């Protein structure tokens, strides 16, 4: 049986991109289990999502180098973002985690909390629309790190460290 292959129209491609992105990131609570949990992640390109202003300001103001910020969970839950990624929830019912997320909206505690998160990289929800440019860059880099050596990864990540410019200047001054 002869089948026709040809160039799909641009409009169909756009439609596919729109629908496919939604489907790919759609939250389906029926998929959640005790081990695997679908956690919403906001797609950067979705313009219709409204985020509480206080949280946006909070996120930008923190300048945190940690891509995961506690208020995200709360905001995403409110918005019911269509975007999600499957994340293994290894600490799903620990009270400490819940408490941490609840307190996360306090600006003054952000710095300490971010640092704590870095030390214990438990999977957490991430709102891509509200993380810093640095976090976006980090995420993109992480997605492309496979097959690279550990030293190559360190070489790429080190430039993101807040002290990198100072250290670089110092090394150049000394050397």
């Amino acid at each position, binding site marked *: 049986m002869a089948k026709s292959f040809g160039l799909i129209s641009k409009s*169909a491609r756009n439609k596919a991109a729109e629908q496919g*992105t939604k489907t790919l990131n759609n939250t389906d609570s029926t998929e959640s289990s005790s081990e695997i949990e679908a956690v919403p992640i906001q797609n950067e390109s979705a313009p219709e999502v409204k985020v509480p202003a206080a949280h946006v300001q909070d996120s930008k103001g923190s300048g945190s180098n940690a891509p995961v910020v506690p208020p995200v969970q709360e905001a995403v839950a409110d918005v019911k973002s269509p975007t999600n990624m499957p994340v293994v929830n290894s600490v799903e019912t620990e009270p400490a985690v819940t408490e941490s997320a609840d307190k996360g909206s306090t600006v003054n505690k952000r710095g300490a909390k971010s640092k704590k998160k870095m030390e214990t990289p438990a999977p957490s929800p991430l709102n891509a629309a509200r993380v810093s440019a640095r976090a976006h860059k980090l995420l993109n880099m992480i997605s492309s790190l496979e*097959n690279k050596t550990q030293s190559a990864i360190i070489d790429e990540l080190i430039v993101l460290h807040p002290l990198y410019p100072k250290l670089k200047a110092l090394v150049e001054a000394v050397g």
Partner: protein
Amino acid sequence: MRVICASTMKGGAGKTATTCWIANVLAKHSGQKVLVIDADNQKSITDLRQEDKEIAESGGGGVTFDWDLKTATPEEAQAIIEEAYENESYDLIFIDMPRMTGLEDDAIIALLAMCDSFIIPIKPARADALATGHFMATMAELKKIRQDEGYPTYVYAFHNFFRNIKENTYLPEFAEEIGIQLFQSKIKLKKIFENYNTYTSLLESQEGRDEFLPFIKEFLEKYEIEADLNTPTTK
């Protein structure tokens, strides 16, 4: 012209290797003009080809590549395919797709919509199977949109990195659950995972032929691509 991609949401499943294995064989043995578009942000095929050239040159010789390579972003890849349709410059286009991160997937999905054939490598690991399940939901959308435009779509998965481990037992069941057909053939020879390049047909050695011939035959049959694998061709 056919546009084929090895694609899945999961990294490390063998998209790049699959692309090279099939492109090498079909470009060398089928007489078809083949283009590979390296749209993966890791640019592995581009790097491999460069290394293949350098190794050949350092040995004082050269190497003949049987397929063309273009390195492109997903947006650029769309333009390349449009041009190839217009000029009828290739018989087969393979795309090494980037993995989906959830951040810039719209361009990738638009590019996927231009493909008529999808081959999905799955490793026997639970995370791979689950990621493939999410990907298949998107594939269903693409398939419907392509169908509405009157174009057929072929989607199959194959069991890559096959090992005799207990995870193998649930993969066929899972595949059935998410509505994806698995190849009967499996790729399991460790050597071909580790030592593939951008020019050697797996059918050239007896060991490679024993491993890959059933797979490539099944590929041609499932995707309804005509190729005479018994006739090595030179370009």
